């Protein structure tokens, strides 16, 4: 377990020493969410209608920005090699990297979303649903993204391939995440949507570190 926290701590410290990466993703999310109300105009009903979709797509793209570098730096400097040779399970160490990625690129979005939601005149309940939905949904983005990042590691033009590979897999999280807010606003209640999101997060948490670790070993073979 100490190895797990050591990896989390290393990734967090590295991100704090080089803040641009974290700030870029967060700033991207803020700008995207702020541009839409300006472009669409002040029609409140329209804004409320499009808000969940826009905020979710923004979060999804923002969390993808830093995915390409999730394993690339470790692969380039040999840290990944040492992790693969550790007697600790590589899946556990990969899970630590995914947790660090979520703390750096998912959690800030969750905390910002209610503030940005105000621009779309979302009600208090809708803002809560949005935040809880993102809290359950952004880990799914990091978990699925890690599989894609591991599969495209060391591939030339991997970043484009990564988005082609990963974006379709994000669709269920997007549908149920944005759907939860819409359901809440239409008075249906978001419990069902949020439960499905939670279930998806659990399934991804079980399989993603294991699958990512297997594809990282393949990348290290060459």
């Amino acid at each position, binding site marked *: 377990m*100490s*190895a797990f926290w*050591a*990896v989390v*701590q*290393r990734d967090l*410290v*590295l991100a704090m*020493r*080089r803040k641009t990466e974290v700030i870029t993703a967060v700033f991207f999310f803020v700008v995207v969410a702020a541009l839409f109300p300006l472009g669409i105009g002040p029609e409140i009903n329209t804004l409320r209608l499009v808000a969940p979709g826009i905020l979710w797509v923004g979060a999804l793209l923002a969390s993808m920005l830093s995915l390409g570098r999730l394993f690339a730096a470790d692969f*380039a*400097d*040999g*840290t990944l*090699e*040492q*992790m*693969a*040779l*550790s*007697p*600790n399970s590589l899946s556990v*160490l990969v899970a630590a990297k995914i947790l660090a990625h979520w703390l750096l690129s998912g959690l800030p979005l969750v905390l910002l979303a209610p503030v940005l939601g105000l621009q779309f005149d979302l009600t208090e309940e809708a803002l809560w649903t949005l935040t809880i939905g993102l809290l359950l949904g952004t880990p799914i983005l990091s978990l699925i993204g890690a599989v894609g990042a591991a599969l495209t590691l060391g591939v030339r033009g991997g970043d484009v391939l990564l988005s082609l590979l990963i974006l379709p897999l994000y669709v269920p999280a997007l549908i149920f995440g944005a759907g939860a807010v819409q359901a809440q606003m239409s008075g249906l209640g978001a419990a069902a949507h949020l439960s499905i999101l939670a279930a998806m997060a659990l399934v991804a948490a079980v399989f993603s570190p294991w699958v990512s670790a297997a594809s990282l070993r393949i990348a*290290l*073979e060459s």
Partner: protein
Amino acid sequence: MLTVSHLSLSRGHRRLFSDVSFSLMPGQWLHLEGDNGVGKTSLLRLLCGLGVCEQGEVTWKNQSIVQEPENFRADLLYLGHQLALKEDLSPLENLRTDALVAGRDGSVDRVMAALGQMGLRGREHLPVRVLSQGQKRRTALARLLISRAPLWILDEPFVALDSPAQNALSGVINAHLNDAGMLLVTSHQPLSLQGQALSYRLTA
């Protein structure tokens, strides 16, 4: 002990090496020689379990390293061409994380002592990016002093080191060999180490 039997490896249609066999007992060290591009690094990576054996088998303590990788990795220390150091972290932070990831004792005292012994006293807290190439290599090699792994696999460990550092490294390796450790090393320079020396020449 490490036993390698009838190992071969191809890259594409090109056969890099075939039928490599040797064994290494406690206190012995093996100097792996060969021309550039003959596959020394590939062989070392294969022996660490980073590659897949097409033919042949590697066993550690009579267990295949493919079937029992955890036992083997706990006993192995591999240092390749890549130093596995983060430029933005200090040598101390780098080696502490590294030790914890490798399941070793990463206490501050132990890491500081190792860095001091490799001649990096006073530089423990500087970011690695400001260190010279040789100092970076010394930092990476300080792992040898933190590890208690019986099997060391080192790829060109003497490259870019000045003569005091080379002597320090030889001393560390000799202590390891006297302590019934094992060493597999590549180097283009002649090596003089204690313990029983073996050599294997890799040919295409």
